[in-house]
């Protein structure tokens, strides 16, 4: 995949699955922060009108025909960013847990030269970063961050964070890799991508952010069943990366 010509503009990606209660506010808040942000919502087969509400709030909406999972929503967003030749892509969650003002801080990191910027709830150590999450989920996050840090040889404090920014040139390489080697499970998507980014020699920069507790619904990424599977998936992701030399 080649990017020809000048890259410009900022795309804000909001993958959403059944987030009708919050998606409109998230889209509106992003647009209030800056009119230069082009907001795209990838509706991952919601059946509660998430896509319609996002469109009415002024976002461009890409609708997956059925619930495909986070990795597919993300990579659809990557493709849109590349197709539209944006310079930067920032992703925030549709559940309203991320502070939209942090988008500017992520972009500042990217403008400073980072290939990927990640908002970390554990970096400043002010609070425990749990934001109403269960202890199990909290410790699972810390443990996976520690394991990935060891695997990639750099300190990563919040490997599962969904508040991220990319230079769009990086997305081209990531997509090429995903197409070549296949996709991993949703719950370990960020872990795998972190390993992949380091293998590609990209710089990852974390910045401290605070996360609000979820007001509506529950996390789709970490249900109880997925939590049971999570340690196995972390281990298989690490093994896979070792076998592939990532």
């Amino acid at each position, binding site marked *: 995949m080649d990017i020809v010509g000048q890259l410009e503009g900022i795309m804000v990606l909001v993958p959403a699955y059944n987030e009708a209660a919050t998606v409109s506010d998230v889209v509106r808040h992003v647009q209030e922060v800056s009119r230069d942000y082009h907001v795209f919502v*990838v509706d991952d087969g919601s059946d509660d009108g998430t896509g319609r509400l996002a469109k009415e709030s002024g976002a*461009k*909406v*890409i*609708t*997956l*025909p*059925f619930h*495909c*999972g986070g990795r*597919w929503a993300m*990579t*659809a967003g990557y*493709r*849109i960013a590349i*197709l539209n030749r944006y310079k930067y892509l920032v992703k925030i969650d549709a559940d309203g847990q991320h502070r939209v003002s942090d988008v500017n801080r992520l972009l500042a990191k990217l403008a400073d030269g980072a290939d990927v910027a990640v908002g970390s709830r554990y970096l400043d150590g002010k609070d425990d970063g749990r934001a109403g999450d269960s202890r199990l989920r909290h410790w699972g996050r810390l443990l996976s961050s520690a394991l990935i840090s060891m695997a990639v040889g750099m300190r990563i404090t919040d490997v599962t964070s969904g508040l991220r920014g990319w230079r769009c040139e990086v997305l081209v390489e990531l997509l090429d890799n995903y197409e070549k080697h*296949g*996709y991993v499970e949703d719950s370990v998507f960020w872990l795998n991508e972190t390993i992949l980014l380091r293998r590609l020699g990209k710089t990852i920069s974390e910045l401290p952010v605070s996360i609000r507790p979820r007001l509506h619904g529950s996390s789709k990424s970490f249900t109880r069943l997925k939590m049971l599977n999570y340690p196995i998936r972390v281990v298989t992701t690490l093994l896979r990366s070792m076998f592939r030399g990532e």
Partner: protein
Amino acid sequence: MPTYVDVGLVFSLSLVIVSLYLLRRHSISSRSFLGWFLVGAGLALVFGVPTFLPTMQRFLGTQILLSSVVFAGAVFALSMIFYQQWKLSDSENKIRSLASEVALLRYRVDESSIPPREERRSQ
């Protein structure tokens, strides 16, 4: 009165013949043909060679013949489940990849069907 051996032989030979017929009509992939052909041929061996099962029993070291058959059946069934699971995951990924492509194409078609702002004003 046909015995179970006759029924088994007819069944296994039918499998072989039907899979060959479907292959000839291009109604079955060569991989599926090979699988069903081997199943049919294996069953023909079981029913057609009377010493096959006792030999298998001796080889597996079971005291009862039925245990050998159950064991072989379980191994075969588990192998099939594993293979089907693998194929299912593969197909699931392909379907999701296609769904993602469809969503992007639909988005691009929708975008291109809306005239640019200036054009709409002049209309």
